[in-house]
């Protein structure tokens, strides 16, 4: 059985091979996968952690602001996909995770609580494990949380590390979420995010994909409430025969919402990457603004890059903008470095560090930043 993930909200030519990603042999994964222990540090007063069953999880998700399955836009062949609490990887992946019958981890911040210290959420996949973890992060009204999740394993390990994270931000809530993937080089990694944002809610999302072999990441952020904001920065390094398949959708429904997504990647060796980034202005999102930016540095002539920046729009009073630049380091950059005596190789290294650095520095924990530094030293 194959499962399709990261489906493009509005399909295009099939022969380009960009409409969706495929995870092969998923039934095999389903047979082998199990739950895994996770650790949480820094749970202050007002922040609770517990494991819940499927029904309770569903009740919590259903209570989130207007999450309805949708598929049809008049005059177009079916676009979007039917999924009750929409995520980037999509409904097939949800069904796959549900098939494992695991508990859901629930992290809740009570209304009005604003703990200062970040919660550090660590998942160690050890050696050659095949495991899945799913969680709901629920930040109450006017509450605020900083959460740093990181996934690691032994450096040479292979296996399957699946993550499914659903985020509910009530009105006025704020979540600063970082996900750092530092898995062994043989890992199949899936990391899914779905988020539902109430009025004035603010989601800041940093994602670093540094290890693993075949990586699928998806994020769908439903900006339902007026003036909700979504800021994301994703950086990735893909090496050897590795691949990364990315989908980010900012669905701007409320009035005066803002989205700002940036994607920085480096492809080495014969790495392959597909990225789909969508700004989706829905009817009623008057006054909204959306930006997305993609930079891909290709450091090998065997690397392959596919990019798909969508802007979908059914509202007049919006402003959307996208910019992409793909290829080797531009001549004017190399020349500037050159005039300071820095050769091409060193310039490339500095630019790679700079790209990863812009995301790393946003992670508000020195220990995690150090671990990122040593992971990079070990692998680059």
């Amino acid at each position, binding site marked *: 059985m194959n499962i399709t993930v990261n489906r493009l909200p509005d399909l295009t030519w099939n022969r380009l091979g960009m409409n969706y990603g495929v995870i092969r042999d998923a039934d095999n994964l389903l047979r082998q996968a199990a739950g895994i222990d996770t650790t949480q540090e820094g749970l202050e007063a007002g922040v609770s952690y517990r494991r819940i069953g499927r029904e309770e999880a569903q009740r919590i998700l259903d209570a989130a602001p207007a999450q309805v399955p949708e598929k049809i836009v008049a005059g177009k062949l079916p676009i979007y996909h039917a999924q009750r609490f929409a995520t980037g990887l999509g409904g097939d992946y949800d069904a796959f995770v549900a098939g494992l019958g695991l508990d859901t981890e629930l992290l809740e911040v009570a209304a009005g609580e604003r703990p200062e210290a970040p919660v550090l959420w660590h998942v160690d996949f050890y050696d050659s494990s095949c495991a899945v973890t799913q969680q709901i992060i629920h930040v109450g009204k006017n509450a605020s949380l900083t959460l740093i999740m990181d996934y690691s394993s032994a450096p040479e390990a292979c296996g399957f590390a699946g993550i499914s994270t659903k985020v509910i931000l009530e009105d006025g809530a704020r979540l600063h979420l970082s996900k750092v993937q530092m898995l062994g080089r043989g890992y199949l990694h899936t990391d899914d995010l779905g988020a539902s944002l109430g009025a004035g809610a603010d989601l800041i999302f940093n994602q670093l994909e540094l290890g693993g072999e075949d990586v699928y990441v998806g994020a769908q952020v439903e900006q339902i409430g007026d003036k909700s904001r979504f800021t994301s920065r994703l950086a990735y390094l893909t090496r050897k025969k590795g691949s990364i398949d990315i989908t980010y959708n900012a669905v701007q429904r409320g009035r005066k919402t803002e989205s700002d997504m940036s994607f920085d990647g480096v492809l080495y060796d014969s790495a392959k990457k597909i990225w789909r980034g969508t700004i989706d202005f829905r009817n009623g999102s008057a006054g909204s603004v959306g930006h997305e930016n993609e930079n891909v540095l290709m450091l090998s002539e065997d690397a392959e890059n596919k990019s798909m920046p969508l802007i979908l729009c059914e509202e007049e009073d919006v402003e959307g903008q996208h910019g992409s630049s793909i290829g080797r380091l531009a001549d004017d950059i*190399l020349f500037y*470095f*050159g*005039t300071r005596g820095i050769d*091409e190789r*060193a310039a490339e290294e500095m630019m790679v560090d*700079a790209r990863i650095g812009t995301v790393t*520095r946003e992670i508000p924990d020195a220990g995690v930043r150090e671990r990122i530094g040593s992971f990079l030293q070990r692998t680059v």
Partner: protein
Amino acid sequence: MAEQLLQVRNLNVSVEDTELLHGVSLDVNAGETHVLMGPNGAGKSTLGYTLMGNPAYHVTGGSIVFDGEDITGLSADKRAQRGMFLSFQTPLEVPGLTLSAFLLSAMRQKTGKPVKIFAFQKELEETMRLLHMDPSFAERDLNVGLSGGEKKKAEILQLLMLRPKFAILDETDSGLDVDAVRTVSAGIEEYQKKRGGALLVITHSTRILEALSVDYTHVLVKGRLVYTGGPELVDDINEHGFERFEAASAAEKKQ
């Protein structure tokens, strides 16, 4: 006799298929300051980029000798490592790369040795003070979010830190207010007088030259060096413009 530093001979330069410089020759000795003036589009920046080795500018004839070595075919980093420098009109912005990390890397590449961090930081702080730069700029991303004036100061900061033998300043004074011009001039003066560096100052105003001692002034018109004079030429041009040089250039072309 002064030590020869740069000899440019009969330089022809093309971008894409258009020739922009025609047979330019220029000699700069160690420690000398040369000013390059000329109307818009004369090819002043082209000359600066070519001397520094921008790959978009193709040398189709002539040669550039620096410090006794023909560098016509060298890449920009090799030229910089031999002691050349170019201050850009619009310097590069690199998010995620701090100014100090950038400088450290450049110095390491130049010497091939690790840089002594403490001494480096001390020198950086002192130089920034000289240029009236906020010390926090060292840890900010290279040129990101800086104003035009701050960017120019950051270029001069790099000039002072990297200690080249010969620096090309491309319109370093354009777009600066009076105070910033004064600060930048002080930085250049430091390079010129205390460190004995040679300069090619590309400008079309004279404000930046007031504090500097100029040895030669060259006038570039339509890709040709049409006149070379002393420091007095700067004032002359300031007063009368380029008209007579342009007329001379046109007459020369007719013959």
